[in-house]
């Protein structure tokens, strides 16, 4: 059976995934040459976590629950916050920063001329594997929190948790792609990383404690609620089944919106030679 349109115009998704995997592997192998960086990164992650734990200890020196969340349950939230942070910094942010730099310098021409979907290519070009140290420590903290809390965790909770984490990763990716795409209009956007990291901090605590407008903002404008709080709800016996549907809906919506914004931005791109 022959295809009506050439493959490079309409890339098959399996090919895109293979490409992404290949890029991740090459990126990881490149970084794996610098073992000492892992030690440094791990040290940094541990320092960050230590500060976070002290902060949490100060909070619980003055109260025994925060908006209905006990101390072990807030540990779960913090652990998931760190896991997502590691995933973002290792797999999403490096490519997005590269994309912003390329738009600024006009060197986006190179990925655009490759015979694959440009969005896939710009999203997988760079990996900073050692940053995933945060995810490792985050996972340990999640487990510590789970052991300490007095709520039983069932298999179905873990399955929902994994699903929600996957969808959360996609929503954060979409949000980052939208941020990076604004570079087509604004050009100087070095501060995007600061903006994202600042907003990301709000995910350190369950969204329920924020006042209404802010809760709305970090649920739908910056999709942190579905990436951090909702997975934590799955592990602390608070998840409503509707939230799973909501997460799926939001993920799909963001995939479409970010794709549209990226396309629209691409039309504005002038390139290096014009």
């Amino acid at each position, binding site marked *: 059976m022959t295809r009506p349109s050439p493959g490079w115009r309409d890339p098959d998704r399996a090919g895109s995934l293979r490409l992404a995997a290949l890029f991740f592997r090459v990126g990881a192998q490149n970084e794996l040459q610098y073992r000492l960086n892992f030690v440094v990164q791990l040290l940094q992650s541990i320092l960050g976590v230590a500060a976070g734990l002290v902060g949490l200890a*100060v909070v619980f020196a*003055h*109260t025994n629950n925060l908006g209905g969340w006990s101390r072990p349950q807030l540990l779960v939230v913090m652990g998931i916050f760190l896991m997502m942070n590691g995933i973002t910094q290792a797999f999403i942010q490096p490519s997005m920063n590269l994309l912003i730099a390329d738009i600024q310098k006009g060197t986006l021409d190179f990925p655009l001329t490759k015979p694959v979907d440009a969005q896939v290519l710009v999203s997988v070009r760079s990996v900073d594997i050692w940053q995933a140290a945060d995810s490792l420590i985050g996972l340990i903290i999640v487990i510590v929190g789970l052991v300490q809390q007095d709520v039983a965790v069932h298999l179905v909770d873990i399955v929902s948790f994994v699903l929600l984490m996957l969808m959360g990763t996609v929503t954060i990716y979409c949000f980052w792609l939208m941020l990076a795409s604004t570079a087509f209009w604004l050009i100087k956007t070095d501060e995007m990383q*600061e903006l994202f990291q600042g*907003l990301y901090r709000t995910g350190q605590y369950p969204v329920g404690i*924020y006042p209404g407008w802010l809760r709305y903002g970090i649920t739908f404008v910056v999709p942190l609620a579905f990436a951090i709080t909702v997975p934590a709800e799955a592990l602390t016996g608070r998840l409503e089944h509707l939230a799973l549907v909501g997460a799926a809906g939001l993920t799909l919506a963001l995939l479409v919106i970010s794709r549209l914004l990226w396309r629209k931005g691409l039309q504005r791109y002038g390139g290096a030679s014009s």
Partner: protein
Amino acid sequence: MITAEPASGPIAETEPGRFREFRTNALWLWRYYTQFMRLAIITQFQYRAANYFYMIGMIAEPVVYLVVWSTIARTNGGSVGGFTPGTFAAYYIVWTLVRNINIVFTPFGWEQRIKDGELSGLLLQPIHPIHRDLAFFAGWKVIVIILWLPIAAALTLIFHPSLSPTVWQCVVFFLALWGAYLIRSMFLWALGLISLWTTRVSAIFQAYFMAELLLSGRLVPLTLMPKWARSLAGVLPFQSTFGFPITALTGPITDAQLWHGLLTQLWWIVVGGLIVKLMWRRGIRRFASVGG
């Protein structure tokens, strides 16, 4: 004595001549500063959107703390450690101004300065390069404060801070802001200079910033920290760059504490200046040896 003539020959070495030289130098330094500040204002004004992105990202941090501590105050029946949601709001809104003022040249920037050879250019100037950074960032603050005003207004409308400083507190606050600026400039400069000795500085920086976060009043007013942390903070410079300026305006604070705070700032400015001077002198020697 014949000393009326201006600097020429050995006469220039006498007192009035030296004074004149000092006056010319001071005037020259003043011009240097005002020029660089103007340059910073013009440059940064072009990047309003970028400056705003940066600021919004920054504002999220105190908002998180504020929401957490207001929640705790409310669960505890209205106040915790003497703070109500209103005074927490005052603390963290003033925090945003203090933070904006004490953002200075990042220690992470030194790696690039060294790698790109920018440092070589700085070495050629007839003046210590910290003046350039001090002047540039001070000028930037003008833009920052203008951009901060609407954010402060919005935060005030949302969180209803209770703030009633005296005139004297306002005066001390103004001085303390610039004290904090100078202290943080010096210490972060010194921290950045470590890059001249080793390239694996990120973990050192991280350790510094974590200590600052916990022991400065940035994370939480120091009065809410355990006693050991407070005593530790007492002998470190961090408090002078966050907790003191904020509390100077929000209170509760006595006149004696205000004076003590200002003098402590002065002490850390001197200490910071000496550290920078010493490290710079040793560091550039190393840098020259690497480059040449």
